Structure formats: C-alpha cells, structure tokens
C-alpha cells in the first residue's frame, strides 16, 4: 500500500499556511517537526479537563492528571522497549537529559580518566562532556569522522580502555544524516564496562528505537523532534545506573522525607524529577509517539528513504553541488554546499520561495570545521513531505543558484 502522505498532511494545520505568498515547504525537520492536530488537541484537552498538579492532592483532578502522566511514562517505556517503566525520566529535552547524566557523572569521573565522544556530535552532546573533563582534569577523546560521513570504527575500537568512564555518541548525525553503528559500539564498550549514552534526538522520529536491543545505558531524546510539543523529553537509563547516580536537582517530587539536617530522596523515576513536571507536554509527547506507532515507524522510514533517494539523484544533476554526508546508512537529511555560493544567500532566496531549510553550522562547529567548509544548507525531511515538494525544492534551488552566480 502506498504511504498515505496526503491524508497525513491533513493532520498538520501549519502545512496549509503560506510563506511570502507561496505554499510552505517545510524541510527543517531536523531542527523541529510540525505538530499534528492530535497533539495540539491533547494539550487543549489536558488544560480544559485534567489540569492539576501530579502526585499530590487527594482530589479527583490530581488523580486524573497523575494517572495520565504515569500512563504516558508507561507508554513511552513500552515504545522504546525499556525493561522497567521507572527507567524513563522526563526532562526538558535531549540537552537537558545529557546534562543530567554529565552532571551526575561528576561523581564517577576523576583525574586521568577518559570520556569518548565523536567528531560529529551536536554541541549538546559535546560541551557537557568537555566541561566535565575540564573540571575533572579528565581527557576528552574524539572518534574521527571519515570523508563519507561515517565514524572511523577502527580508531574508535582502539580508543577503548578501562580508563574510559563514558562513551557518548549520536544515534544519527544532525548534519550528515549518518545512522551510526551504535549497537556494535555499545557491545565493544561493554567489554571494558564502559557505559554508553546515545543521543537519539535525530533518531526517534525516523527509525525504530529499541533500547534493550541496543543495550545502551542511557538514551536521550526530545519530544519536539518527533512531532510532539517543545519543552519535554526523555532520559532513558538502566536502573542500575540511575540508582547509582546521585540526584541532579533538589526539591519537589524528588523528595521522600525531609528532616532539618538530612533528606531521604524519592525512588526512581522521581529521584530525577525535581519540581512540578511539564505534564501537558509529556502527554503531548505520548500522543505524538502514539501517532508514529499508528502509522508504523518502519513505514515512515521506508517512505522518507524514498524521498531521500529521489532528492539525492536530482541534486547530483545540479552543477556545483557537493553533498556532505554520503553514508550508505543514513536518514532523510541532505546537507550540501554549492561552489561559490554562501549558504546564507541560498537559504534567504529559498525562503522567498516558501522553502524552509537550515543554513549554517547546525550547532556542530567542530564537524563543520573538520569538513573545511563555512557551513552547509540542510534539507531534512519528515513524514509529511512529498515527492513534488522535493522536485519544487530542486527547481527552486537551481533558480536561486542562477541568481547568485
């Protein structure tokens, strides 16, 4: 059966808006995705009928909100195939999740230790570890990226040793679209008892995520990159690690008992959820993941791959274009540069034609620098993009290049 893209597009109110008098072509899904009506309605429904503080009052609404909130945790745990529901910690997003782990790992990292990341990391999975290393006089070791946009696995393997206290790697590169062989890396790291954190920001909406199959120790993702609301995200952690880690922030739900001289902290997952949680957006995130599940993530992956293949073949015909990131296993991310043309100029002209793309260094300055360029133009596709949008984009691109050269 053909992928029902036209039917799905109807779920996204923003897709029928116009930009500069042209129909919106939204190709900036790597930055954030648009929201289906189901998600928007869930937020409204929550505030209209359920809003209350969770885990507290004995009253009806509080119970209702708590049941919904914990139901969302349960659903999300199943969605990523976590062993236990309490291994799902709600955060503000991927960056917040990674900062939680890097901050708590201050207790486990000491002078002379090492942390491994890769050269393709987003600043959010780079700076927290860099700062941890600086404060502990530990070493940040960086897996190089090969010319096609894949990780140098040989070097990565040689970097493993008992001195390494954490390996933090992206599942999918936000600039290159490369799907990293994280399962293989995790298995290798575990031979040295190295815990592995996977930055899943770019993966959750595009490929199946099964934390038990990967056997990762931590997995971080954001709701807003998976058709859910902004401001909510997940940190999955194996309970053995989450129990070992000290609390991150103090106050609110993470407390069990307080005496004036000491405090007994709550059990998982509440130990890591200080303050009133973002209930509405967590429920929206649940609805978004449910939406993806209903369509089928493997069908989405197949469809987006079709968009990518079509776009790639059309792009290769445009003179002067160089694709950045040509790994065999990649998601629907097309980063490119055009000889003699600044990405910002192209982005500005495409915007005039109603097309939203990202230009610049994509919050991955070390990677962009290592590629010897001053930024790229990135078109990243989502489940609602179409073949005709791809064709309009390439035609518009040619028009813009002709204007600029």
């Amino acid at each position, binding site marked *: 059966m053909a992928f029902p893209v036209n039917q799905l597009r109807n779920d996204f109110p923003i897709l029928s808006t116009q930009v*500069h008098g042209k129909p919106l072509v939204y190709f900036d899904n790597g930055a954030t995705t648009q929201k289906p009506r189901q998600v928007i309605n869930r937020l409204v429904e929550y505030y209209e009928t359920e809003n209350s503080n969770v885990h507290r009052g004995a009253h009806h609404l509080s119970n209702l909100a708590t049941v919904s909130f914990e139901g969302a945790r349960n659903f999300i745990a199943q969605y990523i195939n976590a062993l236990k529901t309490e291994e799902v910690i709600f955060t503000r997003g991927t960056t917040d999740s990674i900062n939680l782990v890097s901050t708590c790992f201050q207790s486990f990292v000491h002078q002379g230790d090492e942390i491994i990341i890769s050269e393709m990391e987003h600043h959010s999975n780079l700076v927290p570890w860099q700062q941890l290393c600086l404060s502990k006089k530990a070493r940040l070791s960086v897996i190089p990226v090969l010319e096609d946009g894949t990780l140098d696995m040989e070097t990565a393997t040689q970097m493993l040793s008992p001195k390494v206290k954490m390996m933090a790697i992206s599942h999918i590169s936000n600039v290159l679209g490369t799907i990293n062989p994280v399962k293989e890396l995790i298995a290798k790291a575990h031979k040295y008892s190295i815990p592995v954190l996977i930055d899943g920001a770019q993966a959750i909406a595009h490929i199946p995520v099964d934390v038990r199959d990967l056997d990762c120790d931590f997995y971080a993702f954001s709701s807003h990159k998976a058709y859910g609301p902004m401001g909510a995200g997940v940190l999955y952690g194996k309970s053995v690690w989450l129990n070992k880690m000290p609390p991150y922030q103090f106050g609110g739900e993470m407390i069990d008992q307080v005496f004036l001289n000491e405090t007994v902290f709550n059990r998982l997952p509440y130990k890591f959820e200080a303050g009133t949680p973002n209930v509405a957006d967590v429920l929206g995130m649940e609805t978004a993941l449910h939406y993806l599940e209903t369509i089928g993530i493997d069908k989405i992956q197949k469809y987006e791959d079709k968009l990518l293949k079509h776009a790639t073949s059309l792009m290769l015909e445009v003179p002067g274009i160089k694709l950045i990131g040509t790994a065999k296993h990649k998601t629907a991310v097309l980063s490119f540069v055009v000889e003699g043309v*600044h*990405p*910002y*100029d192209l982005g*500005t*002209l495409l915007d*005039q034609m109603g097309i939203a793309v990202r*230009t*610049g*260094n994509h919050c991955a300055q070390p990677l962009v620098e290592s590629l010897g360029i*001053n*930024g790229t133009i990135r078109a990243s596709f989502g489940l609602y993009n179409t073949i005709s949008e791809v064709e309009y984009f390439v035609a518009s691109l040619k028009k813009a290049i002709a*204007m*600029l050269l």
Partner: protein
Amino acid sequence: MTINESAQGVVEEFWMFDDWMDKYAYLIELGKDLPVIDSQFKTNNHLISGCQSRVWLHAEEQEGQIVFTADSDAVITKGIVSLLIRILSNHTPQEILEADFSFLESIGLQEHLSPTRANGLASMIKQIQLYARAFQLKSNQL
C-alpha cells in the same frame, strides 16, 4: 543630499520591483558592486558578530563626516550593507544618530531586522550607530 532624501530615493527604487526576485536580484547586484573594503580592515576587530554570514564594517572620519566601508562573505548581506552605506556614508555623526530607519519597512527588508538574523540589519545598524557615537565623543573632546 540628506539621509532622509537618500532613503526616499532607495524606497522609490524598490517600488519599481513587482516581485521579490527582482528585488533580490537588485540586492545581489548592489552586493557585487560594493567597493571592496581595504583588506587591512577585514579583521576580527571589524567583524559584526553572528554565525550565519560574516560582515566587516569600517568607519573613518573625513572632514567631520563618517565614511563607511564594508564587506561580507554572503552577497545578499553585502547588498544590504551596501544600501545602508549609500544612505549613511558621508554624513556627520549627529545626522547618523538622528537617522530614521523606518524606510527599511517600506522596502520590505524588515524581516532581516528580526533578532534571530544575527547578522542582519539590526546588528549592522547598531554598529553604525556605535561608530557615530564614538566619533561624536571624540570630536566633543577636541
């Protein structure tokens, strides 16, 4: 010509364009024609900070008036800075500080004024005004 008169001239030029393509083609043309800044001024000191495209802006005083030169690695940005320079160069610091920038809205460039366009008009204007203020302070001290 006063700043207001040059600005009005630019507005009238832009009214001739029916569609965005002509407008941007004109900006690109202006960008390509922008007199090249002396390479000694293309340093980090003259860089207007931002991450999308780089803009260098230099100012010097000639007989009580400020002369601006600039460059950018993006040609549309160059076109925009070229417009500003055409209107504001060769005026006294006082005239520049009193300039009314609302003409930018009439030529449909206000979107470049949004705070997220870190290298857009907003930071260029701010830099131009900083130069004017600095030259004014200097001349008051003499």
